[in-house]
């Protein structure tokens, strides 16, 4: 084996001179001639016979050369050189192909790298496919959660899991050292990391001893924190840091790619240190989120079935109104993480595949056209002895060269696009920041471009020019013409689907932007402030801070209204509770079901005036009530209608939490009804809402508030002034200042991003399809120049010729549009969850798109059409 290899290598490198073969052959012939002469032939005859017996000398020489080990490289180099020469001769063609491929492959790659983490890449945990999220779902919390009251029961008695673990959420915490910082601290159970299959890069996990009440204070820190605080010093383990004023020992560092299973940001992991015995007795217990590792061979479905009895147990603990509406949920961790983006990801991938399809069809079509015009050249090469195999290989080499160029360009384009996506995308767009072009994706690109190459290369290669092509008169291209027509029809159909999707999202986005929020966001500057744990430990200090701030800001320059709330509509976080917990004094509580959710806010009296929310009944909150000992509430119109149908709500007494009137559940007097305001985000339904007055009492305040200022000055001036005012009170308080319009606009970020993305693909697809159509029609015109010349010679007018070309184009456009329309109508249903106030079969969008596509397609045919009308009959008839 080795020897064989070495011999091959020697010949591969050194080669063999042609002279050697020649000399060998000459010797052979001479010997034969001599033998023939000895057999009695004449010298002339001997030479002739020897030549006949030997066969073609040149052929032998060629065959000897083909036996050479390096021969295939030689032909490859030849083919590539030939291809490159061809491309340089026809740069428009090559550039079109490479650009088309770049668009197709680039967009596909960029999108693939975005959806990769959502759909395909494995999660950063050991054997992550076996991890599940376990818990209860209820209407008020559609993502599964657990309660301490039953969690430990589950943990003790569950069968389907190797281990069950939990976390109790992430909270802001302060690193109180020199150079203080606000961090996110996640509290997790002791077996959290082992269950997820994660081990610290240095140090150790929490010990059992540390995850109990009043246990030693220890922490695991994130890789980023290790990098920024400790410059990756391994000595960080064992050091003490002060978290919220407590000295805490770092016991380990998390891996670089670690993320919490619910994807919250976490800089520090702390043991959750729950009192297990107390939790078991508690009802409902601490809210938590549970994750588990399936036993080998146990499916998610089986696990769900096996958990049935434990779920029954939890149900018995649940308060009556919940029982019917609570369900058991077990699903894979990936499903938990991507639940609301999975569909969008698949849609994106589908759309971008359509773009790729169009691009490939375009390239195939271009290559076929080129092949058709090169028929004669191929016939000549074939006649000169090129084998069919060789011609096919040549065609494949050409398409490979184009694909590689397109693939490289596409890769660069994808990197650019990805940057654009990230820049355009709203914050918190799941996983987008993690999108990157890694080796797997490069492999994907390579595979895609090679697949393209093989597809269209084979189509072009499966031709062998007939001898008749040599005459230059034969028209043997009908077969390819049919194929090209179908490709164009498919392209038009695909771009129709893309355009329809884009139009639906655009229409939906328009509705989203133009809807009535029930309030005015004009000239409103909002300032979100969250006070630190250590500087403002008591409600007194928190209230004092905000009241001082109010005094400083209320009568500032240009301020016409000022309110403090704990949250602002129309979206984002706000307090809520279940409807069933509300109770009107003197009436029985709602008996069954939770009644859905009710939003609530703590506000100061000028809230309604600042946001221009009409108070339709009563007078809302007044300044006198600020110092009152009574509790006051304003209801939204929908809540009032539901609680007091046909009655006057004013003056009624209301308990917000079901139960006897106690210190914690006081009786609220209804003092007003305000118009409904959009409060569940842009696209979701409104919730009924009530407003509580933030009086000058400490129990009405907490550490976070939003200041709402209506100003007559330009918002930027007011923003700077507010920032300065807050800083003059306490420069360490972090403030988040935005106009309300900006906050509203931010809510629309995601639909806007989706619309722009789909719109981008739609335009790309349309562009490619139009190029394809243009190519086919121009080719049609060139091919039929002669025919057009004859028609003109026998009296056809320019209009007739234009009609001929247009009719031909329409035979592609109409079936393409029709096919696309049918497919788009069938497929648009998958978009329905992304649409707002738009039916998936929205007639406006579909009609507009159909019109646009036909218009653009006709425009694309006008250029070759008008050049056809300028054909000079005498020239046309003389050609060939």
């Amino acid at each position, binding site marked *: 084996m080795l*020897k*064989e290899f*070495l*011999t*091959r290598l020697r*010949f591969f490198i050194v080669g063999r001179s042609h002279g*050697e*073969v020649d*000399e*060998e*052959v000459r*010797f*052979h012939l*001479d*010997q*034969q001639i*001599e*033998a023939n002469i000895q057999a009695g032939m004449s010298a002339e005859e001997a030479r002739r016979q020897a030549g006949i*017996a*030997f*066969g*073609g*000398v040149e*052929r*032998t020489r060629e*065959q*000897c050369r*083909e*036996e*050479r*080990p390096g021969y295939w490289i030689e032909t490859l180099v030849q083919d590539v050189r030939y291809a490159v020469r061809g491309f340089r001769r026809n740069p428009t063609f090559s550039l079109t192909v490479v650009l088309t491929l770049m668009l197709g492959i680039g967009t596909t790659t960029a999108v693939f790298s975005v959806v990769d983490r959502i759909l395909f890449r494995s999660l950063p945990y050991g054997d992550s496919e076996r991890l599940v999220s376990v818990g209860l779902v209820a209407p008020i919390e559609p993502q599964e959660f657990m309660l301490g009251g039953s969690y430990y029961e589950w943990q003790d008695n569950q069968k389907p899991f190797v281990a069950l673990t939990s976390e109790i959420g992430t909270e802001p915490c302060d690193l109180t050292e020199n150079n203080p910082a606000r961090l996110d601290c996640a509290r997790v159970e002791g077996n959290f990391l082992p269950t997820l299959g994660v081990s610290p890069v240095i140090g150790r996990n929490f010990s059992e001893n540390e995850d109990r009440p009043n246990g030693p204070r220890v922490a695991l820190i994130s890789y980023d924190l290790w990098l920024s605080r400790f410059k990756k010093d391994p000595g960080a383990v064992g050091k003490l840091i002060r978290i919220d004023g407590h000295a805490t020992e770092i016991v380990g560092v998390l891996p670089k790619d670690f993320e919490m299973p619910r994807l919250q940001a976490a800089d520090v992991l702390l043991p959750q240190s729950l009192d297990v015995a107390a939790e078991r007795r508690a009802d409902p217990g601490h809210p938590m989120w549970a994750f588990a590792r399936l036993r080998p061979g146990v499916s998610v479905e089986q696990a769900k079935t096996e958990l049935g009895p434990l779920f029954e147990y939890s149900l018995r603990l649940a308060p009556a109104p919940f029982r019917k509406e609570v369900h058991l949920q077990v699903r894979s961790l990936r499903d938990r993480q991507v639940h609301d983006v999975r569909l969008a990801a698949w849609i994106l991938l589908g759309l971008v595949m359509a773009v790729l399809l169009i691009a490939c069809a375009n390239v195939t079509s271009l290559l076929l056209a080129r092949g058709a015009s090169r028929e004669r050249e191929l016939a000549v090469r074939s006649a000169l002895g090129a084998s069919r195999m060789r011609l096919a290989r040549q065609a494949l080499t050409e398409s490979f060269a184009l694909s590689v160029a397109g693939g490289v360009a596409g890769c660069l384009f994808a990197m650019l696009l990805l940057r654009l996506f990230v820049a355009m995308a709203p914050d918190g767009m799941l996983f987008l920041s993690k999108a990157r072009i890694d080796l797997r994706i490069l492999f994907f690109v390579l595979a895609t471009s090679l697949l393209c190459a093989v597809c269209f290369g084979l189509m072009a290669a499966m031709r062998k020019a007939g001898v008749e092509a040599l005459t230059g008169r034969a028209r043997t291209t009908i077969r390819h013409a049919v194929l090209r027509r179908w490709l164009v029809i498919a392209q038009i159909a695909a771009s129709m689907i893309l355009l329809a999707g884009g139009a639906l999202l655009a229409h939906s986005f328009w509705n989203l932007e133009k809807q009535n929020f029930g309030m005015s966001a004009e000239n409103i500057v909002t300032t979100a402030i969250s006070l630190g744990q250590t500087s403002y430990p008591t409600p007194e200090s928190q209230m004092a801070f905000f009241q001082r701030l109010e005094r400083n800001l209320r009568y500032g320059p240009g301020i016409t209204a000022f309110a403090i709330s704990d949250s602002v509509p129309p979206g984002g976080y706000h307090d809520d509770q279940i409807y069933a917990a509300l109770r009107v004094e003197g009436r029985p509580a709602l008996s069954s079901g939770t009644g859905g959710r009710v939003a609530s806010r703590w506000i100061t009296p000028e809230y309604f005036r600042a946001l221009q929310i009409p108070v339709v009944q009563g007078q809302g909150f007044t300044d006198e009530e600020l110092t009152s000992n009574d509790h006051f509430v304003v209801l939204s119109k929908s809540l009032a209608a539901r609680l007091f149908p046909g009655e006057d709500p004013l003056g009624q007494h209301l308990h917000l939490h079901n139960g006897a009137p106690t210190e914690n559940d006081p009786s609220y007097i209804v003092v007003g009804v305000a118009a409904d305001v959009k409060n569940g985000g842009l696209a979701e339904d409104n919730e009924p809402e009530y407003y509580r007055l933030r009086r000058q009492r400490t129990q009405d305040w907490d550490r976070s508030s939003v200041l709402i200022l209506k100003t007559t000055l330009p918002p930027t001036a007011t923003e700077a002034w507010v920032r300065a005012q807050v800083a003059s009170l306490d420069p360490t308080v972090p403030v988040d200042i935005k106009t309300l319009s900006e906050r509203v606009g931010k809510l629309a970020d995601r639909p806007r991003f989706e619309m722009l993305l789909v719109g981008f693909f739609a335009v790309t697809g349309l562009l490619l399809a139009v190029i394809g159509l243009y190519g086919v029609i121009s080719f049609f015109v060139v091919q039929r120049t002669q025919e057009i010349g004859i028609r003109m010679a026998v009296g056809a007018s320019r209009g007739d010729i234009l009609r001929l070309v247009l009719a031909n184009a329409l035979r592609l456009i109409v079936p393409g549009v029709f096919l696309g329309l049918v497919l788009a109508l069938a497929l648009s249903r998958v978009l329905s969850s992304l649409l707002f106030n738009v039916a998936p079969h929205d007639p406006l969008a579909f009609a507009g798109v159909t019109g646009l596509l036909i218009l653009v397609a006709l425009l694309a045919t006008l250029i070759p059409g008008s050049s056809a009308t300028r054909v000079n009959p005498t020239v046309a008839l003389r050609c060939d």
Partner: protein
Amino acid sequence: MPQPTDLLQGTLDLLVLRTLLLEPMHGWGIAQRIQQSSQNTFQIGQGSLYPALHRLEYKGWIQADWKASENNRKAKYYALTRTGKKQLEAEIESWGRLAGAIALVLEQG
């Protein structure tokens, strides 16, 4: 004299190797020898002999040297290498099996 038969695909290599087992030879000699030993049954398309010789040489089964021929001209002599010998043994064996199998079928057919 029976009609010359076309060589079975792939058997030319076997015949060349077997011929070279006796002594190193040049191309013409090999062609002559095969023709004689087969009693003129095999007429080697001499054009295909040289590509075969080159192929065997590239594989390292035979080895070529320029030497003076019997009539004192420079000729290229091919000789069997050690791997070539092993290859020949293997090919003879597999040929025997093939021929035996064909004979069995023909007899019992």
